[in-house]
Every structure is written in C-alpha cells, then in structure tokens.
C-alpha cells in the first residue's frame, strides 16, 4: 500500500470510481480508492441501474442528460473490454392521477426546453410501446427514448479499470477505520492495512457516509434506508422500456440477458444499515406488478436482495467541501438516484476539488444549503 497520496477516496462504488477517474483525467497524480469489499459491493451493485432524464427540476435534467451522454460514450472513453450493457429502450412513466398528469405536463415542457425529447403519450400510444400493459386506471404515460438502463457491475468496473489505467491505486478488501484531522485539516487516513498521508479525503461511502464523516468529526444530515428488489428467470425479450410509476410505486425492466428486475418503495423499511430481505416486499411487489404487466405472473422468481438508499433532507445529493475540516469532501446522499448521476458526480467532484470552473450547476448542492434552508425540491422522485 502507498504511504502518501494526493487524494484518498473512500468507497469503490460508481461515485468513488468516477471521481477517481475524473481527477486522474484532469492531471491529479496519486489518487487512491479504498473499498472495504469489492467494486460495486454497495448500493451500486444492488441497484436497478436505471437512468432517466425525465426530471422536474432544471438541475436534475441537466445532471442526468450530461450523465446519459457520458454513458453513451463510456465504453469507448473508458476503453472497457467488457460490455456495460447500456440499453436505451426508454422510460415509460405511467400516470394514474390528475395531479400526476399536471406535473408530467410541466416536466415534459421543462425537459423539452433543455433538449430532452420526452413526450406525453395517450393509452393507445403507450400500448404500442408495451402491448401487454394493463391500462386500466391509467390516464396516459410520459416517455423518453434515450432513457434506459445499464449493467451496474460492468459500468462501475469500467470506471475503476480506467482509473487504474491512468495510474490510480484501488485497494479492495481494505477498510477505512479512521480519519486523521489536525488543526482542522485532513492529515491522513487509517485503514486496516496501513496508514496513508493525504491532504484530501473524499467521502463516497454511500450508505456508510455518515460513519465515515463521524471519523472526521463531521455530522452529515443523512440517513440510510433499505430498498428491496427482485429478479426473475430470463425469458425472451418482450419489454423494451423501463416501466415506472410514482403513483403506483413501481419500476420494472427487462435486462438484455432476459431477466426482469423490479422494485418499489416499501412501507416500513428499516432506516439503518440492514440489508436483509422480507416477505412483505415479495407480496407487495408481485401483486403490484402483475396488475400492471399481467404476463409477468408466469415468470419465476429467481432472487431478491436489498441495498441502501442514502437519503438527504431534500432528496438531492451533497457535493461539497466541509467548512470545519479543510480537505474533507462529501459526495453522498443520492436518495435513490446516484447511479444515473455517476458520470456527473465524477466531473463535479473533480472540478470542486481542483478548483475548476463548473461545467454543471453543482454549487447549489453544497452542504450549507440545509442550514440556510435553500433546499432543492424535486417533485418527481421515487
């Protein structure tokens, strides 16, 4: 293990890997990533890996469009030998209430003004995209073709490999146990495999980001919450888009390999670090999905699992330096949409750390916004 570094990033998920890559790409030299398990072991490898640009705030539209375009280029730019399985079959957002319809109309207008070519569909048009969609109780759908999903393991690995190729050091199965702060400045990071001196630490530890901040004496206004997900046996391709609905509480996709992956927000999910599975989720999820997409009742369940959403008060990430500790940076609190922001996270944090001009509107995502009451309210979040 190296003894000194220009920056130590804690967490080898999509955030940590993308931040390392973007820092190295901009010329930083000794960049280290510390990961307690393996690449994508956290939320990244447990997530739906859906990416959408159908958002209700300008900021989120810009971040997600930037990231989508980066995913489109990723295999080439990152020189990945594998397949990140980017499938742009669109997101079909089911609308089932009048107020949701009003919101979607506003969203589509905003999205269109930012170059996102989403549109509203009537039920007939929706059925052209998903012929077996049960439209009972639906008023229409919003659709954007360039949304889609990726393979989270390979996408995360692609960033990690690219960072290594640029000279980054990635230490797997290595746990950060302490952060050394002296006179309000970062001095180093203690791990179970050795000590690294550094002036910069980036907290990209996902659901564990509060614990990491504690090590530096910093309190983050975040909490973690379990979210469950399941996968079926693979079958012939029948579903092109990601089907999602806020009002019906569901998302469902068919991955290129043929399996269906689906999830929803549970009623009483524990808000700690537990990632066990529950029967409730299976009952609720299967009854929800078989109503909306009836043929799915014939699919066999393969596995279920869970991961952590890292929640912030306004359900937007924190991309920030921390006043109290010079050299300590936070990239966490994605509140369930941190995978699709991955490329933006890398760019934002590199610009922030290196003091570069922002190419994305990240300044409003600093940690002080909570104290100042400048919350960013996104109307269309799961």
């Amino acid at each position, binding site marked *: 293990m190296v003894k000194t570094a220009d920056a130590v990033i804690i967490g080898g998920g999509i955030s940590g890997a993308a931040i390392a890559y973007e820092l190295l790409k901009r010329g930083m030299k000794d960049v280290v990533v510390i990961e307690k*398990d*393996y*690449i*994508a*072991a956290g939320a990244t*490898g447990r997530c739906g890996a859906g990416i959408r640009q159908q958002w209700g705030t300008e900021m989120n539209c810009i971040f997600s469009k930037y990231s989508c375009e980066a995913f489109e280029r990723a295999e080439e730019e990152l020189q990945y030998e*594998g397949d990140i399985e980017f499938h742009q079959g669109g997101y079909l957002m089911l609308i089932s209430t009048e107020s949701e319809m009003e919101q979607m109309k506003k969203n589509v207008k905003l999205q269109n003004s930012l170059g996102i070519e989403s549109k509203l569909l009537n039920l007939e048009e929706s059925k052209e995209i998903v012929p077996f969609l049960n439209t009972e109780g639906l008023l229409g759908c919003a659709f954007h073709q360039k949304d889609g999903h990726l393979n989270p*393991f*390979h996408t995360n*690995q692609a960033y990690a490999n690219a960072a290594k190729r640029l000279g980054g050091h990635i230490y797997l199965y290595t746990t950060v146990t302490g952060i050394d702060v002296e006179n309000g400045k970062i001095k180093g990071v203690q791990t179970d495999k050795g000590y690294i001196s550094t002036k910069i630490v980036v907290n990209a530890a996902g659901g564990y980001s509060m614990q990491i901040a504690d090590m530096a004496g910093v309190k983050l206004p975040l909490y973690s919450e379990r979210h469950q997900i399941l*996968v*079926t*046996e693979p079958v012939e391709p029948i579903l092109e888009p990601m089907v999602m609905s806020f009002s019906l509480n569901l998302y469902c996709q068919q991955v290129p*390999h043929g399996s269906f992956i689906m999830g929803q927000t549970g009623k009483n999910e524990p808000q700690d670090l537990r990632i066990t*599975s529950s029967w409730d989720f*299976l*009952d609720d999820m*299967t*009854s929800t*999905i*078989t109503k909306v997409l009836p043929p*799915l*009742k*014939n*699919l*066999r*369940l*393969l*596995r*279920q*699992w869970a991961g952590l959403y890292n929640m912030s008060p306004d359900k937007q990430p924190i991309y920030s330096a921390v006043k109290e500790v010079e050299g300590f940076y936070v990239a966490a609190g994605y509140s369930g949409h941190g995978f699709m922001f991955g490329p933006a996270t890398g760019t934002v944090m590199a610009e922030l750390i290196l003091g570069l001009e922002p190419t994305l509107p990240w300044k409003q995502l600093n940690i002080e916004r909570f104290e100042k009451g400048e919350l960013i309210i996104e109307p269309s979040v799961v």
Partner: protein
Amino acid sequence: MSGDSIVCRCSDLDINEIRGYIDQGYTTVEEIKRLARLGMGPCQGRNCIPIVMRELSIATGKPISEIAAAVSRPPAKAIKLGEIVRAFEEETGGAK
C-alpha cells in the same frame, strides 16, 4: 478440467471464461459471480460455485476452506410471481 467444459449451465459459461476473469486478477467468487453472471441461475449456483471455488483455490494457492462462497439469496426454489400473489391472497382473503 479441459478447455470447453461448461462450468455454469444456467448461464452457459465455460471454464475458459472463468479462467479469463481469474487471469484478469479477480480473486473472489463474489466478483466473478457479478461480472460473469455466474451462480445466478435457477440452481442458485449450486452446481457452478464449487467449481469456481476450486479454480480460485488453484490460482491463489489458498485452500478451498479459505475461499468464501457467494452469499446465497432467497428463495431457494424458483416460484412464479403469480403463485406468490395467489398464496398471499388466500392467506389474507385479498385484503391489504
């Protein structure tokens, strides 16, 4: 084990693909499972994971007892989504 032998029947992976990942430097079942989509079929890896553990043991020189198997995910047997719904409705009389 010779060239083309199938390791994971559920995902159609042969020994060369597995050795390819090991050559790239992956040393744990969890990593190979996710990248190669191995052990994720209806048999839940019962057939293939022991073979991968043996390969990793040979490659790393560690005894099999020190190679961790993958976390096993519920359920142990594949049931249809519709059957889960039906069982649930029978149990609760459909009430929620």
